[in-house]
């Protein structure tokens, strides 16, 4: 049954903290527009909870002027407008926030849970910061805070949160694994691997840590050992986790397994554009003759990649939309797939590019590494 206010009594000061005075103007002005927007969002949130609706609305509007796609601010603004009776405006905001979150990229389905989620987690970063200031000496607020930061690429701050959690319980296995993830994101692979080794020594069936150690090992140039981890992960993942199994198989370059798993995954999750793309790529690399699938005309990045592989989108159009490092790697990988059957040299060139420039956590980087290893140097 539902909780009563016992918890509330336990950490009463939280409500007071929400009502803390908004940060002074001077703190808003430094940093990138995104950083400024985040600070304005934080202050708007505090004012909203503190009952200063007008001040909150002003801050949130300023935040959104600097960063119109800051979905957390869009959502908070919608809640504020809703509470003020501006229901129609609010409704538009709620929907826009959900659309923005849905359009955000997320990590591979085989990775640790926190990388598989979409969002900016600005609200969570602020909220858990408040909680951890008040619920001291506990693990959850630190880990949740760290996860929100790490998911946003703020690995150094995440590391600090995880270390605070480990001060509470230095042997806490999950906190050690998360610290390893933060270290890996910071490029401190040897330290990360050492932590992952310890976690896996106590629980060899921890599939998420096997994946993480594989990535760190790959980044350290230890492809064979990375493959051992991913193979172990693949062996442990249940048959029902078809998307995760497909992703690991893709990393390993086990194309026939990847093809079969993505065939199931695309049926279970028809809205995920990666599954038909990876299925087609795996099938091609396995030497199968596959009819080009119907390519959605929704302009999504995955649709462009699929269109490229199906011969409906040109290389230049694809690269034009490859506006981030990750997208560059994804595009180059598929260009390698397209060339593999007819021109291995071109495929090798693209895949080398993926390996040299892509983030080690990307499925494409692992898959390209294994493809290159098979082609020989």
């Amino acid at each position: 049954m539902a909780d009563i206010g016992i918890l509330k009594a336990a950490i009463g000061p939280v409500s007071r903290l929400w009502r803390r005075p908004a940060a002074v103007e001077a703190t808003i002005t430094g940093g990138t527009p995104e950083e400024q927007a985040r600070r304005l969002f934080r202050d708007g949130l505090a004012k909203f909870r503190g009952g200063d609706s007008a001040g909150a609305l002003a801050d949130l509007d300023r935040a959104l002027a600097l960063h119109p796609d800051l979905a957390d601010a869009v959502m908070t603004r919608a809640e504020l407008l809703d509470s003020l009776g501006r229901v129609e405006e609010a409704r538009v905001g709620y929907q826009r926030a959900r659309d923005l979150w849905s359009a955000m990229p997320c990590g591979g389905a085989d990775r640790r849970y926190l990388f598989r989620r979409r969002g900016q987690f600005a609200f969570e970063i602020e909220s858990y910061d408040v909680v951890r200031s008040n619920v001291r000496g506990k693990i959850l607020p630190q880990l949740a805070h760290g996860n929100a930061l790490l998911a946003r690429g703020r690995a150094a701050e995440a590391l600090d949160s995880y270390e605070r959690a480990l001060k509470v319980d230095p042997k806490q296995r999950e906190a050690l694994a998360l610290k390893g993830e933060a270290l890996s994101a910071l490029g401190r692979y040897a330290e990360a691997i050492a932590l992952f080794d310890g976690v896996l020594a106590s629980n060899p069936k921890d599939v998420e840590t096997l994946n993480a150690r594989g990535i760190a090992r790959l980044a350290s140039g230890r492809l064979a050992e990375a493959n051992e981890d991913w193979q172990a992960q693949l062996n442990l993942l249940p048959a029902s986790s078809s998307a995760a199994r497909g992703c690991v198989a893709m990393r390993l370059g086990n194309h026939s397994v990847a093809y079969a798993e993505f065939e199931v995954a695309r049926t279970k999750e028809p809205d995920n554009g990666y599954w038909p793309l990876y299925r087609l790529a795996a099938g091609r690399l396995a030497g199968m003759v596959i009819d080009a699938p119907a390519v959605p005309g929704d302009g999504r990045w995955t649709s462009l990649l699929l269109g490229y592989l199906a011969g409906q989108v040109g290389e230049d159009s694809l690269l034009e939309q490859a506006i981030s490092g990750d997208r560059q790697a994804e595009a180059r990988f598929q260009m390698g797939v397209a060339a593999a059957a007819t021109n291995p040299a071109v495929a090798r060139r693209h895949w080398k590019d993926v390996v040299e420039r892509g983030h080690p956590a990307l499925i494409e980087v692992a898959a390209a590494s294994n493809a290159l290893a098979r082609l020989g140097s």
Partner: protein
Amino acid sequence: MFSVILYGRNDSHGYNLHKRAAISFNALAEVMSDPDDEILFVDYNTPDDHPTFPEAIHDTLTEKAKKVMRVLRVRPDEHARHRLQTHLVALESQSRNIALRRSNPRNRWILYTNTDMLLVPRNKGESLSDILGGVPDGFYQVPRFEIPEMLWEAAFDRRDPAGNLEKLRDWSVRFHLNQVVHNYMPMKYDALGDFQAALRDDMFAIHGFDESMILGWHCDSNLAARLALYRGRVDTLVDKVFGYHCDHTRVAAANNKGRATRMNDQDRYIWNVATPYIPEQADSWGWPEVEIEEIRLDRDTPYQRFTAGLDRAIEPATLPFIQSSLDWHLYEDLTYDLPHTLPFVCDQVVTYPRNTSLMLVAARADFVESFAKAWQGMGFTGPLLIPQECEGIPAGLPGVERAPFDVQLAKAELFVFEFGLATQTPTEPVRTGRGIAPLDRKRLKVVERLFKRAAAREGDSRPEGRRTARRFIGVNVIYNKFWTTFTNHVGANINPFCSQVLAGPPRQDDSMKGKVLKFRARHSI
């Protein structure tokens, strides 16, 4: 689109449970529009001889509620495995996981709420199915608004959910009901357990509710903590639906003892949660190995089974009434009217699992014949175990197994002992001062001996794996010579003579007299 998961038992949890539960069941069904939608009610630990809670209030439910509701019945014997570890009679985590395991796999969402909630879509034209169908994957909560007890108790019509939702739209404005109570993360709102919508896939991935939480409270917060970690965010549906709670604190519920309330450790289950997963219960959550009975309210109901059984066994009465008497001098007369008594016997057994093995020890052959017909007619598939020691039983009765008493004792899950006169004919009047014939005496002696042995040995002769005491039903044991015999060994309530039936578990009597009685019964002295 979604499965609503609720739990409870046929007891009196809090003030006017029946009304608020009926209001809630009907209102939840009212906002369903997808053919796959379902309400899963786990009826946890209701005594075997009681109907489940929804069955007990079925007449107050709408046809739609009855159609979408699946009742999953967890018997006391299943709960007994936890009985020594908890003071509670209903376990939330286990109940919700049992439902999750058995939920419709076609449904994308699982909605966790309670039997006192009404959900009001803000857009009148939308159902909750529409709402959940239109939002992205996530973990959603809504704030809970309270309804003063006077309002829901006095003004709601249980069977008019649409009208009740309309009233709430009106009251929310007139009486300022809508107050959002924010909470600290990961609990987005206060009283979060009354609306937590999660993907079914996510719930399977994180291994359901934590089944080590057996002291009550905070199960919802633990789920929120783990899903907040897993999903990264806790989203709101406050723009789509308002959730109203029928306040019921006039009388404290059994799990609310004020400051003395025992509860699960907050630190362990909320603030020191470190992972969404519970690998220790990955293969066992929701009791996948246990066959859980499923009961529907729109078909094959206990009433239908009860009447089907009796229609097979007895003909309608041809007289306006029959007569019996409590006159003192009739105390020794063991005649009784079988067609009148049989419905009360069937009433004692109809709520038991259909595969129950029932030991039937009887003196009257016509009772055995009639009961066997009724047993089959009620849809029971378990055997009727009639000890070979009972003589005069017709051969070839369907579903009857004959074997020595000692062999059958360890198979029986329920007992019926009938103390009638083997020589009574169907047409003779009852309780007119008839004597006991030698044949009657012989047969009754067997029934009495087997009854005493069964009662005395109940605790050490249970079927393998059974943890709870078996129930004894005595037929023709009120206000006659077997009244004392039966109640010396069975803890039965006082029943009206007219029913002719007493029932209960074996009596626990640790006095010297009780011990002597038990010893003598065990050895049939």
